[in-house]
């Protein structure tokens, strides 16, 4: 049983389950018992296969297709040609938007972490018996549709709107200043919309911290600053990682905020994909763009996980 107690921080494999002594006595376990785990993953596995794996494969194949040339608009469908050109086109035409989306998402994640961590800390440690109420208050604005909330920002921050005209009148802002249609507006919009997805996992991980560890640190003459730095922060890393996943990934693919709050040089990769799919009906290009985005995100996340430690991802969730 000793190996079972030692927590595994290095290997990517699960520790072997403790052998069932009765089964060892009896020899081979019954077939039903051996198959039971597979039966349990059945529904979930089937779900993933039907709604994730098959569409993925279909989309990948689509990205390698080319339209059958035809006269006029006669639709002769697509032909599978192993045509990799769409990937090159996607990268050469839209690398700016890829990079822009990653940069925006990184800033968003940083911002939500800076804003969200103190909030989560305060609720977890100082919330007392009203924790649930505070969490509810945090989520309250999100009962309103995402699009409506962004539209409300468009209304509030418009050039002729209440905020800018008032600030210009008291000369806090120069005349003709505008915030809408700038990268700042898009980033702020995404950050605003992702805040709860950062705060909630942070709260969960902070809430789980054993308070006696903090008392112990105090007993060992640790300053409050060191308690945060050396005890609370390291123990909340799983929350930070989960918050990062839940914030960064949707932020990279976001296109609504740019649609509503953006301007001329704020187009994100989500907008490009949407346009390719729905406006131009260039399915191979759109599929190629989606695949590149997914690949970039996967590689990025694996690297990030390496930096934060070699623990399994599920330990963080």
């Amino acid at each position, binding site marked *: 049983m000793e190996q079972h107690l030692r927590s595994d921080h290095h290997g990517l494999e699960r520790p072997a389950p403790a052998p069932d002594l009765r089964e060892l006595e009896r020899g081979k376990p019954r077939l039903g018992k051996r198959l039971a785990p597979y039966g349990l993953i059945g529904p979930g596995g089937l779900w993933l296969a039907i709604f994730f794996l098959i569409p993925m494969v279909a*989309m990948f194949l689509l990205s390698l297709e080319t339209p059958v040339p035809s006269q006029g*608009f006669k639709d002769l*469908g697509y032909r599978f040609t192993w045509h990799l050109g769409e990937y090159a086109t996607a990268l050469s035409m839209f690398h700016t938007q890829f990079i822009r989306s990653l940069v925006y998402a990184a800033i968003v994640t940083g911002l939500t972490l800076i804003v969200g961590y103190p909030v989560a800390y305060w609720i977890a440690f100082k919330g007392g018996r009203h924790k649930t109420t505070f969490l509810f208050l945090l989520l309250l604005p999100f009962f309103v549709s995402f699009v409506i909330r962004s539209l409300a920002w468009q209304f509030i921050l418009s050039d002729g709107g209440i905020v800018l005209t008032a600030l210009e009148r008291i000369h806090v802002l120069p005349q003709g200043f505008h915030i809408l249609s700038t990268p700042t507006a898009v980033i702020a919009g995404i950050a605003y919309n992702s805040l709860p997805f950062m705060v909630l996992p942070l709260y969960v991980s902070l809430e789980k911290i054993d308070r006696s560890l903090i008392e112990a640190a105090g007993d060992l003459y640790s300053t409050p600053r060191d308690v945060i730095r050396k005890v609370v922060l390291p123990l909340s890393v799983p929350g930070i990682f989960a918050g990062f996943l839940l914030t960064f990934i949707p932020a990279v693919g976001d296109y609504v905020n740019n*649609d509503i709050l*953006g*301007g001329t*040089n704020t*187009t994100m990769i989500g907008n490009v994909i949407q346009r390719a799919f729905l*406006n131009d009906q260039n399915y191979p290009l759109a599929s190629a763009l989606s695949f590149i985005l997914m690949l970039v995100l996967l590689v990025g996340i694996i690297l990030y996980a390496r930096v934060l430690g070699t623990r399994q991802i599920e330990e963080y969730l």
Partner: protein
Amino acid sequence: MERTPDAALIRGLTQRRISRRDALRYAGIGAGAIGLAALLDACGVGSSSAAGSASAAAFDWSQQTLHHQLNFANWPYYIDTSHGTHPTLDTFTQQTGIQVNYKPVINDNQGFYAKIKPELEEGKPTGWDIIVITNGAQLSELIDNQWLIPLDLSKLPNFTKYASDSIKSPSYDPGNTYSVVWQSGFTGLAYSPKATEALGREPDSVDDLWDPSLAGHVGMMSDNTELGSIGLLKLGIEPSTSTPADWTKAAQALQQQKDAGIPRGYFDQGYINQLEDDNTWLTQAWSGDVFLANQTGYPELKFIVPKEGVMFWHDNMLIPVGAANPLDALTYMNYAYDPHVAALMANYIWYVTPVPSAKPIVASLPGGKPVADSPLVFPDQAMIDQTHTYYVYTGTEDLDQWNNTFDPIITG
């Protein structure tokens, strides 16, 4: 255009009426998800097979009978509405016994086309007897794939008698083989007093969209047909006869405008809100939207026909192949061209009605005088002379080239 009295109030309509383009600006976002599913369906299994098993060419109108049922897909806020019902549709039902299942489900041409395309490809009915699509790539695709039922013009006497000559036998559908116009509209410029202030004069030209004194406050359209067309107008090129070399020149002019920081952004239907909120001062605009904004709290906004002219577009009624009730659809099309019906609709929609003889009837309706007098609803010959038509794409390759020329400006 003269400042108009608030016709909406006179008619006792108190609800704020939202233009069809404005109303579901963001419903498209939700529809996008549905569209994606449809697309995956469309391009997945069986996509390599030739399209359209139902044959439109062999359609025999003499075999058709009325089923007293009509499924009509239209754009939002695009038919007369009073207290939740559509009076002209109610009258139609009373006169013909045809029950109308009217659904304002079309939010944009591309999205709606993406939804019905998989069914058309498989030769299945789309569930609609009439759909309304703007002249452009989607309409050309529907025609070229024979996904529309050819109309029997002998069953459309009102169309023959009352339709404006300007919409008969259009270049995108010669002889009205598949389509008759529902309503039309103009794409010109709209501006607020701030533009006049910044320019020191009233804007009067497409060139004003390139004026540095408006930097950061010019609205351009994200629809690449509109964007490309205005680029061509700026260079004095007739869009309908332009060549790919012209497109490149237009794209350069638009890129230069963007590099100079003049456009505020490339907007979809939300452009009118940008203008209303003072974010943009001068913008590309659709005529009816500005007319509506005037009635709903923004009387200071003006629509103008720049000296280079305006683009003239048409939304068309079509019968998709596999429609269950084609004769009912044709009956309705004929009804829509009755001048009295057209007048009631024009008085609500404020885009260009295809029936010029509806004008005296609109004028006699309560509050209808400003509508009847507006050249944007009843264009006179002088107005028509200032219009341009869009380039008609010859095929997919052509369209791709247009997209590849103008998309980088919008998505840059």
